[in-house]
């Protein structure tokens, strides 16, 4: 709000000045670029609504944090499909809003849309949320940033493992892509670190936003005895609310969902984009080079754990806090052998380990022991 007011004021003053000098006709045009150059202008594009308690809201909250900086201006557009539409949106942000940096946040925006626009506008920087940038293949004005959200998911798993009485947990997932599988596995590993008899049943809904199917999956899992539910879909609202209605526990994802389930909400994994976006804005303002790859977990502050719900027992809190401490110190490795997949095959040998930064984890195509489900 504050930014826009200031922008209007500047423009008005400028035009007044121009008119006085007798160049009013061109004043309106040049004033825009003059203001834009003084400010860092960033454009954000979301695939869904920005207030869905989910992935898009997390980015929107990050964008909103920029409003506190009086030298930055952030524009955004929601509900932009992963089609040629996103190219039009990017083009209008560049040409009409004067954006210097674009943050198209959805996974499917990258190829071919960002890559095509990056070639057309080599002076603009495109930063994509996801892990897809490859130095050999992709232009230099493109970059990726992403967080190791499976760290707080692991912590949520620890809490869920402690709190479950039936020892059956439910995971509602959109589709079996590596990112999703990694969250499922981390949740299961966390839960089974608390109690090795726990199983996690996965239901894939086949889409990022399909409320009816999500509700149906949640009900089916509860019918089968699951007493803690979590999810990896665009918005956890339906899953968390259904769990609350049926009287079972839930763990959130993307943003803090505790208000949706005051009784049964345990904890959850959240993004912390405010810090990331503010850092980017600072780099641009100072004219420093923008790194093509930014990654981080709990320690770097890219992700965080939701505050524990009222139902969480002291023992569960203690166990989870201990794990968080290890993450913060940088000693925690989730994928440490021996780990078997759910067909009994050993995927990580005893003694071997894959730290978070390990690129191998980003091509995950297996489900860990204790997970009921298949990636096929």
């Amino acid at each position: 709000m504050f930014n826009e007011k200031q922008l209007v004021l500047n423009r008005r003053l400028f035009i007044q000045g121009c008119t006085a000098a007798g160049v009013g006709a061109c004043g309106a045009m040049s004033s825009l670029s003059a203001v834009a150059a003084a400010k860092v202008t960033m454009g954000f594009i979301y695939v869904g609504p920005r207030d869905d308690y989910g992935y898009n809201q997390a980015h929107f909250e990050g964008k909103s944090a920029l409003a506190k900086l009086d030298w930055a201006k952030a524009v955004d557009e929601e509900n932009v499909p992963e089609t040629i539409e996103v190219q039009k949106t990017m083009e209008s942000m560049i040409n009409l809003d004067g954006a210097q940096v674009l943050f198209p946040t959805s996974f499917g925006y990258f190829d071919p849309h960002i890559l095509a626009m990056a070639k057309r506008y080599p002076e603009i920087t495109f930063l994509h949320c996801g892990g897809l940038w490859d130095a050999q293949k992709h232009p230099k004005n493109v970059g990726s940033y992403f967080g190791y959200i499976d760290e707080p998911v692991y912590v949520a798993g620890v809490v869920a493992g402690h709190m479950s009485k039936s020892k059956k947990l439910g995971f509602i997932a959109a589709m079996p892509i590596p990112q999703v599988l990694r969250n499922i596995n981390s949740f299961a590993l966390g839960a089974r670190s608390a109690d090795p008899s726990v199983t996690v049943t996965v239901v894939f809904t086949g889409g990022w936003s399909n409320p009816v199917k999500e509700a149906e999956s949640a009900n089916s899992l509860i019918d089968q005895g699951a007493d803690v539910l979590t999810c990896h879909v665009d918005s956890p609202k339906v899953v968390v609310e259904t769990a609350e209605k049926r009287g079972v526990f839930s763990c959130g994802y993307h943003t803090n969902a505790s208000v949706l389930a005051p009784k049964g909400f345990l904890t959850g994994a959240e993004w912390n984009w405010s810090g990331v976006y503010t850092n980017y804005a600072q780099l641009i303002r100072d004219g420093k080079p923008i790194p093509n790859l930014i990654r981080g977990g709990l320690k770097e502050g890219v992700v965080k754990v939701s505050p524990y719900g009222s139902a969480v027992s002291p023992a569960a809190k203690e166990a989870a806090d201990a794990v968080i401490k290890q993450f913060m110190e940088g000693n925690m490795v989730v994928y440490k052998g021996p780990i078997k997949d759910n067909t009994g095959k050993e995927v990580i040998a005893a003694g071997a380990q894959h730290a978070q930064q390990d690129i191998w984890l980003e091509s995950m195509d297996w489900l860990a022991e204790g997970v009921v489900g298949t990636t096929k």
Partner: protein
Amino acid sequence: MQDVSFWTVIIAVLGGAIRVGTPFIFVSLGECLTEKSGRINLGLEGNLVMGAMVGYAVSYLSGSPWLGVLAAAGSGCVLGILHALLCQHKRVNDIAVGIALMLFASGLAFFYGKPFIQPSAPRLPSLEFGEWSSSPVVRAALDINALFFVGAALAPLLSWFLLRTRWGNAVRVVGESGDAALAMGIPINRVRLLSTMAGGAFAGVGGCYLSLYYPGSWSEGLSSGQGLMAVALVIFARWNPMYCLYASLLFGAAAALGPALQSVGINWGYYLLNAAPYILTLVIMIVTSDRRGTLSGMPGEFVK
């Protein structure tokens, strides 16, 4: 163990048929009535989305979910009237108007629905018929919303109305032959207006079932084409309200099957199972297609 899972799947699918199928009942009955009067209203998807938003918003603002249902029916009414008024002019194509209204209503609902995505509105209560059972599965499946019974009663009622009442006859005459209706002195436009209006109201109620009961929150991806599927459903239900009811339940069951099987660990081909309702539509369309060109039960006005 395997046996127990089998029964829980069956019960979950039956429960799902009712939970997921209810909005289909309302939209398909609404479309059935409209089409019987000789108009196709493809815009019911828009009515569904609008009804979902208006119902949720009114329930949130007033604190009464039943007031939300009424408001949703009202919003459907208004959209129905709009469709009928536009279509009564010469050379106006009802299908094109329907598509335009669908886009218009969805866009309007998304725009005005923005502030209602986050807050939690009071939901419609459900009737618990499973009190007697100790099994949580049975109890969950028998947790049935009153709107389902309204919908289920509406089907025979609409059947009776169309076949046995004078007004119903008027609707059918207007749908079968405009010329005959003119000769009989039936006001064609007024009959179509009332039919489209009532049909629109049904679809609006179907929408608020989505937002106020199941899945029970307003979001922009809530409908994902259910209104359009319900319109297609009318065709293979042969414009018969009772068949509309059965077909809706079948669709609900098909949608519930995928999640139910996965939750007991049967993961074979879940992509296929998730697509089950759509495949079902295509298969039924092909199986029931008629070589002679017209379908039995189709209002005569469509053939012209």
